[in-house]
């Protein structure tokens, strides 16, 4: 398993360990592509607010999040808020703003202040 995929699995586990947070996202459906600038990819499928699949490949996605591998791993392991690299252009997003805002909300809630 790649570092990115392992980090994604960690994120999913932490997220699902917070049922109230998962419940808040009820109705959210999205395919999220995580891409590193080094060429690695992971695709995460969200159904009704729950993450139902993590695939270690680049599949068509509604929302594509791109950053270098270290940045993405730090975010997925909750060592960094996604806001910081986003604000400074080190993480970019392609896709509907609403999906990104929801993902950002979840990551920020999980990330310790």
């Amino acid at each position, binding site marked *: 398993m790649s570092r990115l995929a392992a980090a994604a699995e*960690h994120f999913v*586990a932490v997220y699902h360990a917070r049922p109230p947070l998962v419940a808040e996202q009820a109705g959210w459906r999205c395919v999220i592509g995580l891409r590193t600038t080094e060429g690695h990819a992971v695709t995460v499928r969200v159904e009704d607010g729950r993450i139902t699949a993590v695939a270690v490949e680049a599949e068509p996605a509604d929302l594509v999040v791109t950053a270098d591998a270290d940045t993405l791993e730090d975010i997925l392991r*909750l060592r960094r808020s996604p806001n910081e690299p986003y604000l400074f*252009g080190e993480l970019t997003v392609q896709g509907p703003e609403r999906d990104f805002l929801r993902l950002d909300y979840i990551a*920020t809630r999980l990330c310790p202040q």
Partner: protein
Amino acid sequence: MRTSDLVATSCGTAVAAVCALGLFQIERTLGGVWSVAAVLVAGLACAALARAFGRLAAVVPSGASHLAYLARAFGRPTGIAVAAPYFLLTLTLVGAEATVVGLVVARLTPLPVPVGAFLFLVGTWSICRAGIQVGYRAQAVATWTLLLGLAALSLEAIVAAGARGELGARLVPPVPDVVAFVAGVGQALFLFMGFELVTAQAEVASPLTVRRALGVSVGILAVFYGIVSLGFSCLSGSPRADGFVPQLALAEETGGPLALVLVALLSVLASFTSFNGALLSLSRFVYALASQGALPRQLAGVDPTTLVPRPAVNALLAAAIGATALVIVGEGIAVSILAAAVSASVMYAGALLARQRRPFAESGRRVGPRLLGATLALLLAGLGAAVILDAGAARGGLVALLALAYGLAVVAAQRATRPVRPAARPFAAPASAHGD
């Protein structure tokens, strides 16, 4: 997203009610074809900027736009120090915008200016806070109606001046002095300010669409402002000292009461879309900075249902009300317009220089375009200086406002880039994934 949607968004962001005051100020200083020339020179600079911003958005397609570009090119502290005042002074401009709305409302109703301005701010805030976004199509209809309506009224004013035999005298006044003309170009930059914020849409639009929209918007804005400036030159009445709103004067003189009401409504609608857009984008900026500790962390909350950063939106309303009070009590419309023009010059110069650096500069880019970009950046910075030099009675307030904005930005830059304490260990999580 289509190019036409982005063009409407770009023009709608740039054209606010306060722009008419700025344009009128340029026209009164330079007059006739000279004010048109100032607008066109500023438009040419913005056309070059449009190309540069197109490249920046293609390499870093980020909703954080300016801050992201400058931070990537020059590092985070410089990025914050240059981009934050631009956004901060946009907020000051909201004070001027709300005041103009108050003047427009006061022209048509018995409501005093401060009450109209306050109702405008609170009304827009409540809509934004509820998470209601104006659709692209609705915004486009409002923008095009306003632009076409004002351009038509201006043409009518020009024709009327021709019929009175005044066209030559109105359009060809004496040649202005060089400093006044350069300052006029600097002020004209303010009229285009915000056109490039459409780069934030690079997350939902292709780089080509964004680049096209930037160029087309600059062309439309230059033509629009040129025509309206000539319309202002041909107004037969002289402006009243207090509460003069040039777009209403133009409508009243050429179109009568019906045109007056229509332009007033469209003007308020344009202000609403501008302030609503500013609240949405600035609140996310404030939220992101607060979550980094650059601003108080209490501002970093997000409503889970609407995803609106409500504490930041509330803080922005408070700041906008404060800015409006300062503009009304301190008669600071001119100061806020000039400060915005200076911050735009600095921001745009920074963007052009960022274009010359990694990761934005192509490897092997020819010396000619690089020199041109650097020269234009220098000229833009010079325009900012000319605006300060030519500010006359407003210079003291202008310098104070700029010192405040850039001082706050430097503090924020220091706070955002200080060493971060190690994050606490996240709570224990189960080893398996997918939550099944």
